[in-house]
């Protein structure tokens, strides 16, 4: 059993660089990978520029965003002791997106440093806090999901409204960009914007990993095991908001990764909510990278939205969840 798990983790680890190679090899232009790699970072040939300035940052951003979403989902599920929780469902993503939309379209430009991410995280945090307050402390799964859906719908409507009044000719189309997510045309600048916030998120969740473990037994047991402080849930929420908010600010909201990934990999870490964080980050990165490879290779008039691809993968998973529940196992 344990050996089997180790093999699976090893497979995931090995698959990531392979997928990265796949992503670097995918694109509308055929590129001589080996010579472009040999030319290095500062290569001036168009092959090298395409590889180092276009494909690599996009692939790494997919990894980063996927990791943030996977880890955020694992933390959310651990904190709420609920396998149906995910950052997007609890409004974190749409909160971040709304803040980003307000800032970008009515405020300063894209390249104004960390303010965008900071605001997005503020948005993510307030949305999650609103859901938490609305549902009440120690709320049942049903009430929490209900509150999440309500806040989420409201925030999505606000995004659409804000974009409608935005001084942009592409308002309605931009709504889709934000709500379905995209990694197209992202470069190193966005990657470096998101990176510190993901790091803060990882750090916050690293310090709360044992709280998540103890919380598997319930709030009272966790408190008796030395995790009484209200700082722990706050730190988790901050970690999720930081990682997911940073990701959403550069890539828009991408659903289902945060929900599906922790589910899939939970057996690989013997259900341990702490190790689940890291394995979910790994699997989320892999899933989003594969989804982006699909997006890149999909031929169409418009680029396929990556949120649509993850939903394609995520929705059947939901069907499967319902079917197992019908067989009377749980839920």
């Amino acid at each position: 059993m344990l050996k089997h798990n180790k093999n699976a983790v090893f497979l995931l680890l090995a698959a990531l660089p392979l997928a990265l190679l796949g992503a670097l090899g995918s694109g509308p232009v055929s590129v001589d990978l080996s010579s472009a790699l040999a030319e290095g970072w500062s290569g001036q040939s168009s092959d090298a520029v395409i590889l180092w300035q276009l494909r690599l940052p996009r692939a790494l951003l997919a990894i980063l965003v996927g990791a943030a979403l996977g880890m955020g989902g694992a933390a959310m599920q651990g904190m709420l002791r609920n396998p149906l929780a995910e950052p997007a469902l609890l409004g974190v993503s749409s909160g971040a997106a709304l803040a980003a939309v307000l800032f970008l379209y009515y405020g300063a430009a894209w390249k104004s440093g960390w303010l965008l991410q900071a605001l997005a995280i503020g948005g993510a945090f307030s949305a999650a806090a609103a859901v938490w307050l609305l549902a009440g402390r120690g709320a049942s799964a049903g009430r929490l999901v209900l509150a999440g859906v309500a806040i989420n719908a409201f925030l999505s409507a606000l995004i659409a409204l804000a974009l409608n009044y935005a001084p942009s000719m592409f308002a309605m189309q931009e709504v889709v960009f934000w709500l379905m997510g995209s990694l197209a045309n992202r470069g190193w600048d966005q990657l470096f914007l998101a990176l510190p916030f993901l790091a803060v998120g990882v750090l916050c969740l690293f310090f709360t990993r044992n709280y998540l473990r103890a919380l598997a037994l319930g709030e009272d047991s966790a408190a008796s095991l030395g995790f009484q402080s209200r700082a722990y849930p706050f730190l988790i929420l901050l970690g999720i908001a930081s990682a997911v908010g940073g990701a959403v600010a550069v890539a828009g909201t991408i659903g289902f990764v945060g929900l599906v990934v922790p589910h899939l990999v939970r057996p690989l870490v013997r259900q341990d909510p702490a190790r689940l964080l890291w394995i979910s980050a790994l699997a989320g990165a892999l899933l989003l990278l594969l989804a982006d490879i699909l997006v890149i290779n999909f031929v169409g008039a418009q680029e396929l939205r990556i949120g649509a691809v993850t939903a394609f993968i995520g929705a059947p998973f939901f069907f499967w969840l319902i079917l197992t529940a019908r067989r009377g196992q749980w839920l």
Partner: protein
Amino acid sequence: MSAHAPRRNFFWRQLLLGAVLILTAKAQAYERIASLNLCLDQVLLNWAEPADIASLTWLSAAEQYRSLPIPEHVQLNRARAEELLPLKPDLVLAGQYGAQRAAERLQALGVNVVTIPDAYSLEQLQQQLDAFEAVLGPLPPLQKQKRALTQLLDQPTAKQRASAVILSANNITYGSGMLEHQLLQRAGFDNLASSQGLARISLEEVIALQPDLLVFYGSEQHFALAYLAARHPVLQRYIDSGRTYTLPKQLSLCPALAVVDTLQQLMDKREALVKAQ
């Protein structure tokens, strides 16, 4: 029906003038002109006598489209027949698309509605300019624009050509058959976009094509994810070396007004590029 009286007077005066000047224009000089279309708004504001304009669409007053101040007496409309009827226009200009229902209603109610064809190519643009002249008469700025365009088009095309590609919002590029493509060709550029009409172009393709000139389109004043490609750091070397040109937003909204300046600027740009090489 007192409104008819001044019009009749005007008509007689026009006839007299026409007899004296032996004008070829079949056009009447209208003095209560309304427009149902943003481009036609701009044409009227630029070329017609401000006193002759009765109504323009509200878009012309909107911050993102306003190019010229709107005279105080001009009423703004949202292209609805009931807004225009009380203004008693003697000429309503409509575009080929949009506001069709309002135009039909007005026509049915006996209002003089003239449809101006849209222009997506140089040929259509020349037809459009002729249509303007036919309905508005030989307005001096209009004639000047037509002359300038003919002059530019009559110039022999440059022998030393450069290459260019257009990267518009949402990774759209303009291929053969489009006005933008024709302007590039006339200015001495080979458009590297191999496709016909509008097509998608990725940043990778832009880099791989290695154009001499990278042509952006439209304003970047306001943020939109649609402009993300144009802001990508990979294009920085084009911007740093001055090998970019931005087609004015006006060219897509109302090419009749922008075509001459744009073509001239593109020609100048090509010369500068060739000289630098």
